[in-house]
């Protein structure tokens, strides 16, 4: 069997992603069918950088499939603290685990890992580069909440320059027909040139605006991200702009009744707590979807989507 990895969302075709979402849906509907599927298998979670949702959802996913989990949650508690290379860590862990999920601050670390072992590697985030399992999570949430992944007006708001989840989601949603993109950010934090090139090349309808109020009534999806103080060149610009990127009930007034609000989390203050009770707030549902899609991903990469005879 060819070893499959998930390093970037483009490693999987739309058809494969659709199959994985169908599998996640089946897991949600029939969890008992899958509760022993990975018995005897081990997932290693190698988190060289802190994480709450990604690491715990991987671990919960493997446990709900009946498998076991080993690993570390910071580089301080691994031999990386002694200066061990990613290559050597992976060669070692590849001897103990059947599949590896990893997060590393350096961009490209999961690709190196994939070159050093014969067990499947899942990228749980590499610096500001890729975070494909968050994208799978976002896609599953959108599919479940909207019933489709096409013909949607997607608003992405906040730090669009450094937000890796934003870049991956745009890349993924571009592959589905007739989606429209509205990029809401301060000028300083607009999407990088390569994303603009992708949007131009795809020939889709898209625009950049500075304030969410300008476009709120048009959106089917509002994907919020945090605007971080340290991204600004000067304090005055940050103070001038920060409130523009905080979502509250007042800003939501013109929004569609069936809008869905997403956020990769963690949230700091960019979505007011009052919004949590609005039925359009889907960011905690999104966290739950993250576990199910990771179960589907583990089964796919281990080639265990079908029950063994």
């Amino acid at each position, binding site marked *: 069997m060819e070893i499959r990895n998930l390093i970037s969302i483009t490693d999987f075709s739309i058809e494969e992603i659709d199959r994985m979402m169908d599998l996640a849906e089946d897991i949600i509907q029939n969890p008992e069918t899958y509760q022993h599927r990975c018995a005897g298998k081990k997932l290693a979670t190698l988190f060289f950088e802190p994480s709450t949702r990604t690491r715990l959802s991987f671990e919960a996913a493997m446990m709900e499939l009946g498998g076991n989990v080993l690993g570390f949650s910071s580089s301080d508690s691994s031999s990386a603290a002694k200066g061990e290379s990613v290559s050597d860590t992976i060669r070692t862990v590849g001897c103990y685990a059947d599949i590896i999920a990893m997060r590393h601050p*350096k*961009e490209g670390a999961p690709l190196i890992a994939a070159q050093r072992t014969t067990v499947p590697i899942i990228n749980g985030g*590499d610096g*500001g580069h890729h975070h494909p399992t968050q994208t799978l999570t976002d896609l599953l949430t959108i599919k479940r909440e909207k019933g489709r992944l096409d013909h949607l007006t997607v608003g992405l708001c906040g730090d669009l320059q450094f937000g890796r989840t934003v870049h991956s989601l745009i890349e993924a949603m571009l592959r589905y027909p007739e989606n429209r993109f509205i990029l809401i950010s301060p000028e300083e934090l607009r999407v990088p040139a390569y994303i603009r090139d992708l949007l131009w090349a795809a020939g889709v309808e898209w625009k950049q605006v500075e304030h969410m109020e300008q476009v709120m009534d048009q959106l089917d999806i509002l994907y919020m991200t945090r605007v971080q103080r340290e991204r600004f060149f000067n304090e005055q610009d940050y103070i001038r702009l920060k409130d523009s990127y905080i979502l509250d009930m007042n800003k939501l007034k013109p929004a569609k009744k069936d809008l869905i609000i997403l956020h990769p989390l963690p949230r700091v203050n960019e979505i007011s707590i009052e919004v949590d009770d609005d039925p359009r707030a889907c960011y905690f549902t999104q966290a739950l979807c993250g576990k199910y899609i990771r179960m589907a991903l583990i089964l796919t990469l281990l080639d265990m989507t079908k029950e063994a005879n």
Partner: protein
Amino acid sequence: MNVDGVSTGIVIDHIPAGKSMEIYRLLHLEKLTCSVAIVQNAQSRKRGKKDIIKIDENITLNLDVLGFIDPDITVNMIQDGQLTKKKHLELPETLTGVIRCKNPRCITTVEQEIVHAFKLTDREKRQYSCIYCDTAYTE
């Protein structure tokens, strides 16, 4: 200025003016024991000025390096004073162990054993990007 012709060896011609030393370094020509001549700013009908490198021995060249610098460079193989082969180059699809990624957040900055590798991402702009972090290469 006159530089002796090559009787048996290689003439790398039509190098963009000013690029010969970069090629010299990337091809590690300093390791050769034979004569190597670098001609800079020679007259060129096509370009006005060009550089030329003459190597007094038939060696194996990394043509990807030359194609990366400029696919319009030509490589002339000479045997006993006769031109035996004229090689035309193409932009290589991949470049391995030739240039280095400059992104400080790239894994290649910390893992010593990794060979830096790039892929051609925009043929028109002759743009190469790191296979690990996708950062575009800039000189």
